């Protein structure tokens, strides 16, 4: 096992993410999975749109493409068809992937393009000032919903299963070892893999909803989780688990897996 820091563009570090933001934990787990699979770093292409999560591609020493808001799956589709030998990984956020880029995401899933999409769901628009996103849970406070969000939120995994994604997983950012395993699985899966990572935004979501900072938000994920995994945050050594229980009902783990033909372009080339 090599030190995953060798996959970083160290000159660009430290990254811009706020203190306690779990996106960095996700990035580390992704690098560990690349290391586990022993992928050639010149054959890994990370594609991102706009948002906090999309900033991650700026710090990795792979081929990276920073595109326009929500269009990362579209860029990635073109990239994969032109250069099928690349391992294409899309990093997107909940606002980027489900709001402005919702159509691009579901159509990439429908075509079953061989790519992996990491959707970092922090339940809010973090970069632009904490506005409510399509994933903001009902009742949660955001800067545009000071009395609490009145709309129901997306279940991204159900959406993507419906759209035809052939591998759909949900994991918690508080669970780094499982994240690594799930990402390695997804990158070896032939077809469209979608991973929804429950990340956090301590700076906006945590502050507005009085959950707390990074550590409290990682613990909070355990309360949200109804899944088949045992999150690290559930261990009793965590000193403060906040009592304000967030909306639960999120199932984690591999939610859907099938093998079906991968879209290979007009000429049928793989």
């Amino acid at each position, binding site marked *: 096992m090599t030190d995953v820091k060798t996959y970083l*563009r160290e*000159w660009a570090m*430290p990254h811009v993410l706020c203190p306690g933001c779990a996106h960095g934990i996700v990035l580390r787990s992704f690098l560990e999975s690349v290391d586990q699979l022993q992928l050639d770093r010149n054959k890994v292409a990370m594609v991102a749109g706009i948002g906090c999560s999309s900033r991650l591609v700026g710090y990795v020493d792979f081929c990276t493409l920073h595109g326009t808001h929500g269009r990362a799956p579209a860029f990635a589709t073109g990239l994969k068809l032109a250069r099928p030998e690349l391992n294409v990984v899309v990093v997107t956020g909940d606002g980027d992937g489900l709001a402005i880029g919702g159509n691009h995401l579901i159509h990439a899933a429908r075509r079953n393009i061989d790519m992996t999409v990491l959707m970092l769901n922090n339940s809010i628009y973090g970069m632009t000032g904490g506005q409510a996103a399509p994933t903001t849970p009902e009742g949660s406070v955001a800067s545009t919903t000071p009395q609490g969000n009145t709309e129901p939120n997306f279940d991204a995994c159900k959406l993507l299963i419906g759209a035809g994604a052939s591998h759909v997983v949900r994991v918690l950012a508080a669970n780094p070892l499982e994240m690594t395993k799930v990402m390695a699985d997804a990158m070896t899966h032939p077809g469209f893999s979608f991973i929804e990572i429950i990340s956090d935004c301590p700076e906006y979501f945590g502050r507005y909803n009085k959950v707390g900072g*990074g550590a409290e938000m990682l613990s909070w994920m355990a309360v949200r989780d109804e899944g088949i995994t045992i999150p690290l945050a559930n*261990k009793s050594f965590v*000193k403060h688990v906040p009592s304000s229980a967030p909306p639960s009902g999120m199932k984690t783990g591999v939610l859907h897996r099938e093998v079906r033909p991968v879209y290979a372009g007009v000429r049928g080339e793989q």
Partner: protein
Amino acid sequence: MASMIVADALVRAGHDVKQSEVHGMAQRGGSVFSHIRWGSDVDSPLVPAGSAEVLAAFEWAEAIRWVEYVRDGGAVVADIRTIIPPGACTDRRSWATRYPDIDAGLFDGRHIKTRLIDASSTATELGNVRAANSVILGSVAAFLDIDDVHWEAAIASLVPRGTVEINIAAFRAGRTVSDAEVPQQVPDPDGFPGPHQIEIRHEWCKGCDICSRFCPEFCLEVDIDGKLVVVNADACTGCRLCELLCPDFAITIRPPLEPAIAAGPTDATGSST
């Protein structure tokens, strides 16, 4: 099961018998024991402390734990098998324990006869390690005045079908098996190599407090200036929780023997491509 066999054999021999069992979680320090009282007329199932004729200990620490119940001049039959409970662990890094030494003369002061046997090895030689308890019963039988016919009938009626022969063979072996040699207790050759090394890259750390809040050993702390400090370096067990949960790649845990690379800004080119 073993105590049921003893009780059944005593009933067959014409005694009034009362037996009680307690099942706790022995690995976590709980109790697993049974009392058997017999005689012409038994009213209570529990044996008062200091009055038991024989103590059958299936493990050495259990012998020490229950020897108070044996009367002066009674007998202890103990398997030399040792099962070290987590509660006896004194150092999770080296797995050092405070398990008592096996000592056949430990109860001599109370004139208690101590018989140490290696039931597992005896049963393995007979063909099935799972018959070890019958070996212990055989050794217990040597101290009780019950005819072997009753013992063997009790075993035959209670052990699982298909294992009667081996259990009776094990019982007979237990009657005659020679005392076990006390195994030499060797200290762990590897020993404790020292705590893992926590390396902090302060120029990347944002003082978010995740590592210090999740560290099970409380090694880390964010001080009043927001700077991460190692407060208890000796306690690090190398679980890497802090390293894996650090969003800023600021912590590296290195194994004890590997020299730490000096923290500080590294080569600006970063990596190979």
